């Protein structure tokens, strides 16, 4: 019932609003290695800038719904905010809806295994001067408390992201506000082993001051953060991170990241190295390996490791095949299981503003003490980005 009500509403909105907010570091396969090319947040994610919107429509999304006489340039011109000409150019609204159908162990016959999740209902706005030297951005979003996640109750709308951005020089920017912590490959899947164990998911934005520099062959971001204001004081992670990438060859990037944070209960440190490379137009490979150390205040430290390998192959414009491998061990010295994810998925942008994903995922845990039955997941996602 909720879907029946919400979907037509979103569909109607899509006719009037402009494109949105993704983070796909795999799009180095199109020659766009730096996040700042498309995003207002130079470390990736969040609302797209005008160039990112145009690029999305004119180069990445399928053009099957446009006739042959419509050029890519014309599609790009339509990618902006509908009605933009009647609005001041310094104001850019955005909207994003993301839903997930998750079925565990498809074919097992269990009737309760399919679940529907509203993953994202975000709306926001960016204001900036014509040159983009001064910018302020805010995104409010559906951010339910954990008790409401299972019910899909839209019970809490919070300002998930807000920041002011100031360009200090040709290649320097400073950000202040509530932002994602810059670290590693900013994979869009918040359940991934290169995002969740590190504390870098959709709930983990932190009040930060970030200094960012980006040049042709390298970029570095340094972040000092004091935690998420929606989290109780004793759980707020305060600390710092640094992440950098170097481009040794065209459309190839190697990087490293370091983060250390603590709250009243835990000291959390992560170090990683990563690699991204374009393979051919639209196709790319990226991988990240890292180590995580957690030191509870009243216990001994545990050190674990993770691996994330993602390929993306362009099948035809707007459609991609995406094999995935992930590995995670929470504590390399104890009996915690070695966890694996093996996946194959299809990512589709059938038209500008729309995205669909189908992923088949196998999750295996290998224990030292027993055999454990693996779990299969079928994930189907639908996104509307306005």
């Amino acid at each position, binding site marked *: 019932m909720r879907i029946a009500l919400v979907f037509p509403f979103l569909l109607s909105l899509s006719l009037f609003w402009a494109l949105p907010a993704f983070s796909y570091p795999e799009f180095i396969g199109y020659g766009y290695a730096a996040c700042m090319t498309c995003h207002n947040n130079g470390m990736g994610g969040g609302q797209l800038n005008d160039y990112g919107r145009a690029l999305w429509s004119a180069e990445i999304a399928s053009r099957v719904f446009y006739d042959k006489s419509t050029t890519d340039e014309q599609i790009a011109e339509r990618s902006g905010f509908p009605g933009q000409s009647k609005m001041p150019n310094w104001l850019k609204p955005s909207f994003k809806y993301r839903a997930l159908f998750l079925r565990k162990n498809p074919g097992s016959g269990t009737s309760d295994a399919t679940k529907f999740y509203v993953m994202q209902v975000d709306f926001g706005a960016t204001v900036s001067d014509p040159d983009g030297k001064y910018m302020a951005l805010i995104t409010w979003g559906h951010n339910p408390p954990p008790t409401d996640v299972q019910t899909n109750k839209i019970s809490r709308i919070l300002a998930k992201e807000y920041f002011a951005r100031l360009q200090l020089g040709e290649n320097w920017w400073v950000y202040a506000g509530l932002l994602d912590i810059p670290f590693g490959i900013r994979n869009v899947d918040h359940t991934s082993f290169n995002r969740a164990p590190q504390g870098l998911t959709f709930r983990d934005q932190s009040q930060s001051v970030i200094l960012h520099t980006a040049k042709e062959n390298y970029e570095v971001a340094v972040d000092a953060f004091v935690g998420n204001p929606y989290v109780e004081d004793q759980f707020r992670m305060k600390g710092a991170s640094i992440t950098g990438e170097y481009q040794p060859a065209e459309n190839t990037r190697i990087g490293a990241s370091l983060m250390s944070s603590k709250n009243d209960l835990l000291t959390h440190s992560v170090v990683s190295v990563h690699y991204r*490379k374009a*393979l*051919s137009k639209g*196709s790319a*490979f990226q991988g990240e390996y890292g180590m995580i150390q957690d030191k509870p205040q009243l216990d001994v430290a545990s050190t674990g490791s993770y691996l994330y*390998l993602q*390929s993306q*192959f362009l099948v035809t414009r707007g459609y991609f*095949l995406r*094999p995935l*491998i992930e590995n995670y061990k929470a504590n390399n010295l104890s009996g915690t299981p070695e966890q*694996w994810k*093996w*996946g*194959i998925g299809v990512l589709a942008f059938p038209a500008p503003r729309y995205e669909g994903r189908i992923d088949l995922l*196998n999750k*295996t845990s*290998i*224990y*030292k*003490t*027993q*055999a*454990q*039955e*693996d779990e*299969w997941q079928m994930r189907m996602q639908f996104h509307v980005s306005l």
Partner: protein
Amino acid sequence: MSAYKSFVFAGLILLAASSAFAVETVFHTISIGYFQWQERMELSSSSGKGNTVAQFFGNSFGYERESYNLHWGNSLQLEGYLGQGNGGRPGSTPAYNQTFQSFFGGSVAYKWAYRPSGYISLLSGPFVLYRGMKWPEESGVTAKSGSDINVGVLFEAKIRPSQRIEIYQKIGMLGIKASGFFAAGLGMKF
């Protein structure tokens, strides 16, 4: 015919199939990697029978010959496996729990290949897997899992960051009392 002989026979048939293909480019690759799969395990004792699962995982080493006619081609791959198996779990009925049982095995795979660019190959085809594993008896409970010889289908994606090095990922399904087969590793072309 023993399981081992059947495995060799299947390999010879696939080798003959792969050689009957007009080619422009041939790659020879040696590889090392990690693999895992799962089998259904049947437990039997004087007091009754039960089912559980067995996991197989370990390292692989292999040789592959790929032949391409511009974008399309085929491949024959031979792999050896050295690994361990975990079978059963505490609380299973009948009670059975064995971990890190060593085994060796191998596979032969014939794959059709598509190479959209020099950096990417996508392959798919049948494979035959052999593994020698005899689960030990535990307190009167005997265990048998899967099949010594198994057959399945594979999908494989390869990317080549450089001319010689490749990274591969395989996702497959095994047909006889088993489920997904997964592998990943590094290859070197010569």
